[in-house]
């Protein structure tokens, strides 16, 4: 493995308040410099929470965080004040799911990029604006000089997501977090944004954590895949390994639920049931209630983690004895 960029150890995130939710449970994850990882999972599996924890964006009063996170050697969970502001945006930045909502409607897009650049680089307004212009060019926005002065409501969703990416990369972060950046876009635009992200990743060489619920997208952009379920990583490996040889029944379910190769009129292979509510910390396999292979052992204790090769792991008792998931 290359030099470590992100090192998450035994992360727990719990939301308190009217209802307690154990959003992340004992999550361990590694990312090397310049690596791209897809966090794959359905809604509520804790993908976005993981990203927001990495940027410390969760409301501190209603969140309890345990474990350790290091990004580039910085202990993220102890950052505060100016150090935290300097970390956000400069070391790690984020592309949000809905670009139309993630940009301030009353400032021009150029001003919003320049604002971030000025904060981190301490340069003049004019210099920051020319950096913003340069970034708009790099994300291939046509006639960037004009777009610089446009307001968010004057641009299309695809354009806005390009602006969002320009904003996120303007300060040359080491790590880019992308929270379902293509979910809110039209199918044709999705592909363009994915290709753009892949190109920019090669150009800038930053590490990327890409959250998605779409296996196709994960395959397109990432070298590695980590599958999340109920706030835990149930399977991890290179994209090749996970796609060609999925070991966890949940990963297999996701594959089977994919639309590709389904004949017209045929029922889709949905995974029955719904994810658990996580009001208590899981003491057994969270997937057992929906798993076709579940045994008594699955419902009694947490599943053992099998590590067939370095950086490949599966949290399932059946990981070593692959059985057809049908």
């Amino acid at each position: 493995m290359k030099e470590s960029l992100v090192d998450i150890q035994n992360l727990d995130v719990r939301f308190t308040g009217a209802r307690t939710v154990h959003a992340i449970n004992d999550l361990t994850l590694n990312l090397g410099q310049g690596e791209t990882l897809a966090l794959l999972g359905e809604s509520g599996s804790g993908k976005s929470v993981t990203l927001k924890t990495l940027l410390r964006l969760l409301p501190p009063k209603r969140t309890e965080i345990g474990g350790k996170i290091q990004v580039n050697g910085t202990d993220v969970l102890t950052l505060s004040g100016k150090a935290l502001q300097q970390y956000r945006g400069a070391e790690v930045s984020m592309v949000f799911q809905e670009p139309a909502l993630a940009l301030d409607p009353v400032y021009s897009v150029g001003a919003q990029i320049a604002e971030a650049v000025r904060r981190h680089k301490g340069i003049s307004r004019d210099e920051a604006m020319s950096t913003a212009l340069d970034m708009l060019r790099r994300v291939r926005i046509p006639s960037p000089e004009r777009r610089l002065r446009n307001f968010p409501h004057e641009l299309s969703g695809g354009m806005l997501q390009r602006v969002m990416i320009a904003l996120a990369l303007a300060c040359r972060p080491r790590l880019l977090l992308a929270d379902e950046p293509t979910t809110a876009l039209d199918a044709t635009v999705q592909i363009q944004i994915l290709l753009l992200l892949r190109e920019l990743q090669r150009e800038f060489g930053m590490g990327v954590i890409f959250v998605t619920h779409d296996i196709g997208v994960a395959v397109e952009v990432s070298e590695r895949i980590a599958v999340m379920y109920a706030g835990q990583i149930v399977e991890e490996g290179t994209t090749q390994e996970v796609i060609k040889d999925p070991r966890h029944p949940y990963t297999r379910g996701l594959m089977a639920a994919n639309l590709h190769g389904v004949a017209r009129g045929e029922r889709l292979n949905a995974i029955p049931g719904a994810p658990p509510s996580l009001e208590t910390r899981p003491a057994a396999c969270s997937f057992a209630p929906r798993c076709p292979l579940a045994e008594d052992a699955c419902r009694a204790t947490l599943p053992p983690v099998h590590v067939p090769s370095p950086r490949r792991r599966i949290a399932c008792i059946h990981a070593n004895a692959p059985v057809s998931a049908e």
Partner: protein
Amino acid sequence: MFAYFLRRLILVMPVAFGVSVICFLLVQIAPGDPLTAIMPVDATAEEQAAMRAVYGLDKPLPVQYAIWVAKLAQGDMGRSIASGRPVAGEVFGAVQNSLLLALSAAAIAFPIGIFLGFLAGYFRDTPIDRAVTAISIAGVSVPNYWLGIVLVIIFSVNLGWLPSMGAGPGGSQDWAWDWLHMRHLVLPAVTLAVVPIGIVARTVRALAGDILTMDFVQALYAKGMSRGDVLRHVARNAAATALSVMGLQLGYLLGGSILIETVFNWPGSGFLLSNAIFQRDLPLLQGTILVLALFFVAMNLVVDVAQAAIDPRIKRT
């Protein structure tokens, strides 16, 4: 931007026309004949008819309206029936005084209201929020003429710190920027400020609270912005709506201060208006209402243009 202003200005014209027609007709449909108030009880029918002709009240309504508007255009609003002085002079003097009072009240109310609203919006659902909400509900609910009287009892009668009547020493009508005059302004301005404090605080609280839950706030933090930067963004987002509420409030302050001006004997438009009503002084009533209404219309125009200048989502072309 200038084109937008012109367009709004043109749109205002029919409104101004409507306002003038209503002002004119209001007086026509009001019960009671103005002449009976100034004519001796035993006046003959001929004498009444002659008086009617003097004031032009014998002509058909549209003609009366045309004459009225033509004179208005020359700054002639007729003569007050009660005092015999030109209405224009009386109205503008009074509106100036009211404007002074309204602007002073606004200068007290808007900063406090905005501050309290922001505080409550930022600390939503905390004791701070509840305290601000209680203050603003109390401010809106307490009848302000009652509050005015209470303040007079405390600060004028019991403590003797501030005068309770008029706009200057010895009932002087001429305003001057010295303490002798300004101390007359304190109690009415504070009393008048209480309602807009509540309304502005409620509005800003709702705006700030809503904006703070929007995704872009999190995105601002994500790009390394400080709390101050984020609040600046929130303020800019809230400004357009807050401004329109404050513009309306200023209009109400100007026209709606009848009770306060009566309580404090403030020689403003509200005071003039209530006198005109009780004396059935129709030309004066008409003139006052018209000036206030047109002021309200102008206020809305200013707010519209200011909103468009602040918020790019409002179409400027």
